[in-house]
């Protein structure tokens, strides 16, 4: 009797200990794909899909800067860069080469949301930390994914514009290329706010590449057809700069417009005294992905998905952005400032 109750209480105690240890050990558990057998300094592989666009060059710049910082801390000794030249098959081959050369981490902008799944699973099985940002893959065989929310982008832009034109009026909607997921997702994100305000009429929409010239051309012809425009919902890139230039060339009055952090647009915003709003896909996603990869390799738990809050530029802080304009290429993007504290906060918040 006493014996069995002793056993019962002892096993209860053990069970309690196990239960209390369980969550604690889970919190200390390594992130996905991490086995703990890799030691600093690490080799980081940066599998880019296409290195030519300015946004990509600036992103690579933030990665290289972060690598320099991590080198000084003795955490990283080498950065290996590949460029798939837009070909998802080549990207798979290059990721395979990274596995073959036994890099410790792969940071990745995917050329296809599905194609790299199997090669990434192979990398994950070898204990390579994989941080995927910007263009995401569908597989969960990665350490973490990092991105902003495109739907939120569209929603916030639409809300600003509706507010700026007083809840009613005729607007143009400028989209990126058709069939591109970022462009589709931003447009879908704007839908709810537009539907909630039936007095806001979308008189026309455009689909152009995220460049000034095609957007300017498209808006110019729309302006001829529509003598009355109260606002422009532009969903990214250099589209807004094209629209502002089109209005200017026709001698039309500028209207409230949304946009992205393209330097040319921010400068026009100031020059023309616009009432505007802009957000961004921050280039430092690259630096943050690099930082996160090293954190994961160091045995820290990192969340499977890190949602980056959209930094907002409006008339209250545009001057702070333009003050730094000289540090950025003329056709580039003025991204919000970042430092290690921000990265720590982003990882802790999730």
């Amino acid at each position, binding site marked *: 009797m006493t014996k069995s109750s002793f056993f019962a209480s002892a096993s209860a105690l053990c069970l309690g200990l196990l239960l209390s240890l369980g969550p604690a050990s889970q919190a200390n558990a390594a992130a996905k794909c991490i086995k703990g057998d890799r030691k600093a300094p690490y080799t980081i592989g940066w599998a880019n899909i296409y290195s030519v666009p300015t946004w990509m060059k600036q992103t690579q710049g933030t990665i290289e800067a972060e690598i320099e910082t991590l080198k000084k801390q003795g955490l990283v000794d080498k950065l290996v860069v590949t460029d798939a030249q*837009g070909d998802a*098959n*080549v990207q798979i081959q290059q990721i395979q080469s990274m596995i*073959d050369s036994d890099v410790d981490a792969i940071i990745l902008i995917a050329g296809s949301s599905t*194609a790299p799944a*199997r090669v990434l699973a192979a990398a994950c099985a070898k204990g390579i930390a994989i941080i995927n940002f910007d263009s995401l893959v569908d597989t969960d065989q990665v350490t973490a994914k990092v991105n902003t929310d495109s739907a939120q982008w569209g929603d916030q832009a639409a809300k600003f514009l509706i507010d700026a034109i007083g809840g009613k009026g005729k607007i143009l909607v400028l989209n990126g290329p058709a069939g591109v997921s970022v462009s589709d997702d931003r447009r879908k994100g704007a839908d709810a706010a537009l539907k909630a305000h039936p007095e806001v009429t979308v008189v026309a929409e455009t689909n152009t590449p995220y460049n000034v010239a095609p957007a300017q051309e498209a808006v110019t012809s729309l302006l001829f057809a529509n003598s009355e425009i109260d606002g422009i919902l532009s969903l990214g890139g250099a589209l807004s700069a094209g629209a502002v230039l089109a209005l200017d060339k026709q001698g039309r009055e500028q209207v409230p417009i949304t946009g992205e952090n393209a330097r040319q647009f921010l400068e026009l915003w100031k020059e023309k005294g616009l009432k505007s709003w802009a957000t961004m896909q921050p280039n430092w996603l690259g630096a943050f992905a690099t930082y996160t990869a090293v954190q994961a390799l160091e045995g820290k738990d990192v969340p499977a998905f890190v949602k980056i809050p959209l930094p907002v530029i409006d008339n209250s802080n545009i001057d702070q952005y333009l003050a730094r304009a000289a540090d950025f290429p003329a056709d580039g993007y003025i991204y919000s400032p970042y430092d290690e504290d921000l990265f720590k906060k982003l990882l802790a918040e999730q």
Partner: protein
Amino acid sequence: MSTVGSSRQAGALYWPVQLRRNVGVRGLFAVVMAFLVAYGFLFPGLFTASGFAKFTQSWFPLALVAMAQAILMLTGGISLAIGAMVSLGAVIAATTMTGPLGVAGGATAVALTGVGIGGATGFIVVKLRLPAIVVTLAGSFIIGGAALLILPRPGGAIPEWLSDLLAGNTPAAFVLLVLIVLLWKLYLATPLGLSLYAAGENPVGAYRSGVPVDGARVAAYAISGLLCTGAGLFVAAQTGSGDPIIGTAFTLNSIAAAVLGGIGFLGGQGTMRGALAGSLLLSLMISVMFFLGFTPVAQYVAQGLIIIGAVAIPQFRKVQR
């Protein structure tokens, strides 16, 4: 023709003839060998079963589309729809194989689509006497659009076992490639296959000699289509899914591989082994430059230099002679 002579004579002639056919691509073979040796030296894992398997898997789809383009160029044709056909093959495989059709049904659908579209393209080009470059450019939009209709966004699935079989840690892709090359050799021994070169080099002369010129050319388009959708099936297996634009880059790469391999644009000139070596060089280049630690910008420059070099070496030798 050597087939007219006795079989003993033909046998004695076979190797000298084959060696002579290599003349134009010897330089390319040397460059490819150098790259293979360099790759093996930089990445000793190449000589393990899984290392060799992964390497041949990267090369395999490019090898197939290089063959697909070479067959057409040998008959004096060309296709700008190669990439779209690969995409179509991939999305058909990824949408049918896990459905009621199963793997066998899906593979049949992929094969029939390839032969059907390829044959139809050939029929339009040959019978309606339209320029191949225009027909296949228009075809690339139609076929690419069809792939997007079947699978608007990347998705679908390939059974896990098939992916592991074709693109796992076994050299299945290499074995398949050897089989396909043997089949090509067999095809060249058939009347249609024999007509292929004749139809490309001198169609009028061949026609007057009773060679089925039109039949040979239409058959070439059908085989080419089959190779393309087959490559698409393999890409789908390799990636475990379908992507409606996955093949885009194959169009240009197939032409590059064929031209590197000494296939002439005017038809009747070049060998399949040349095209295969050309595709192998394109694939090897990517891995070797990675292991040499080239930066992306240096890779762009090096790629161009290597291609010019591989094409120029035999020309230099000709000039010297």
